[in-house]
């Protein structure tokens, strides 16, 4: 079943075309990596999907809803169904781990409950369960600035999981991590997608990682999709096409 349909989406900044006529669709439960050189438009593409950035043209259908036509309130409701994970974790560092995780529930809450941070016992139990599963059971009351990078990213994952999302968008989730924490994070993302059937759309800079973990790879260059297919079909020629010759040499060798 198709969960996300991106049709002819374009995004312009004053003089740069960040995205031009992007087309692809995503099936439920798929694990997809988006690769491409710096400035290709990967982050822009991801943020257009949950409308953190407004696309100029085209159509984005998520779970049967026309995303670009939503009003403010419905947009908030849509965003609860889409988790997001960031390169720099984007936690509130002065708050505890569990408070940060519970932030994922804000979109479901009434204004006042969210403001004073009143969460139900079920929500708290769910948060504990997720943290336990992600191996953070010992850190729940730690302030987030006391965590390592890998642990911070796991808090980020927990925060998106507690949303009960249908899809998770990850913008370079491992770009600030060492190889072993990167592996932990990617394994956990893969588990999430396999066990819970949550669709993952991951921006990556590491081609090997993309090939290893994803069902499908989308290659972007200068705002255009230049490759879209199963990861095993990604040949060195297409890598050259995505990254340009110079960088291609480095990656393929």
């Amino acid at each position, binding site marked *: 079943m198709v969960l996300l349909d991106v049709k002819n989406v374009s995004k312009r900044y004053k003089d740069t075309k960040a995205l031009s006529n992007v087309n692809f669709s995503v099936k439920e439960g798929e694990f997809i990596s988006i690769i491409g050189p710096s400035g290709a438009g990967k982050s822009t593409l991801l943020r257009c999907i949950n409308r*953190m950035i407004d696309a100029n043209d085209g159509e984005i259908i998520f779970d049967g809803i026309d995303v670009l036509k939503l009003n403010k309130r419905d947009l908030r409701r849509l965003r609860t169904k889409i988790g*997001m994970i960031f390169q720099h974790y*984007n936690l509130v560092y002065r708050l505890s781990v569990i408070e940060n995780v519970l932030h994922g529930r*804000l979109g479901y809450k009434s*204004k006042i409950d*969210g403001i004073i*941070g009143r969460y139900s016992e079920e929500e708290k139990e769910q948060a504990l369960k997720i943290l336990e599963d992600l191996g953070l059971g010992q850190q729940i009351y730690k302030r987030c600035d006391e965590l390592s990078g890998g642990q911070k990213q796991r808090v980020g994952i927990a925060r998106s999981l507690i*949303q009960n999302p249908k899809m998770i968008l990850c913008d370079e989730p491992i770009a600030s991590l060492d190889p072993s924490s990167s592996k932990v994070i990617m394994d956990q993302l893969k588990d999430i997608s396999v066990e819970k059937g949550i669709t993952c759309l991951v921006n990556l800079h590491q081609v090997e990682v993309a090939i290893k973990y994803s069902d499908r790879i989308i290659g972007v260059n200068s705002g255009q999709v230049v490759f879209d297919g199963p990861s095993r079909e990604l040949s060195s020629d297409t890598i050259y096409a995505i990254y340009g010759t110079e960088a291609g040499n480095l990656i393929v060798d």
Partner: protein
Amino acid sequence: MEGSIVSTVKYRKTNKGKIKIRTVTTSSVVIKTTLSILLFLTVYGLVTLDTKDVNLIEAVKDFAINLRTMFFQSSLSNFTFFQSLYQILVTLGLAFLTTLIGGFIALFLGLLAAENLSSKRVSTVIKGFVAFIRAVPTVLWVLVFAIAAGLGSVAAVIGMTFHTVGYLIKAYSESFEEIDKGCIEALKASGASWWQIVFQAILPSAATYLLSWTFLRFEVNFTNAVAMGAAAGAGGIGFELFMASGFYFNVREVGFITYLILFTAIILEVFSTRLKNKFLLGS
């Protein structure tokens, strides 16, 4: 002069032939010019000062004697120690009230004035307006409001609050703008509303800044409250100070009151430092 040791690095030399490490910028020229003009004005003012028939040496001697009486023989005569403590409380109350009201208003307007939380246009309008409020000194605002409210505590509260709001909006909104925009983005992406983001991300992250700015302003307001007691008849210790010096010419009492104010200021400082440390180190 230009020279080069390595062929690619171009450097300049001073008049003495040394390698130059500082270049002349507009700001350094402006600073130097301003300083020399100020120096000239100071010297000119001193030289052309009209001292009438006051003998400078006599005057300095008298001044020293007065100072000695003031600070080494301080005492109270027109009211008791407890009355003076009460007056200090009144002044503290004035400072507290104006900081509290001002801080509350500034918190909301500060959110609107922060560019990352509101629109560029709203932010610019508020910031411009606030710059105007701050440009006028507190005393003048008190006097402006005295036209409507009459000289006294009401005018002082309104006027001081007004200036406090102006000051704190700037301080608060800049603290908000310093906040890592990532956590705002993250909460927005999960569907949180503006107010939820403010209370769950902005305020926790900015808490220490808000606290220290508010305390700083409280200290300023305490000093202001002393001055307003004298200048605007707002009551409190400032008014007693004014009466002792300008009305009774009682230097001993002036000395005593000065000690009292100094002591209070020190206590406030110690208290605020403790509070800040507690919050900065985290609970």
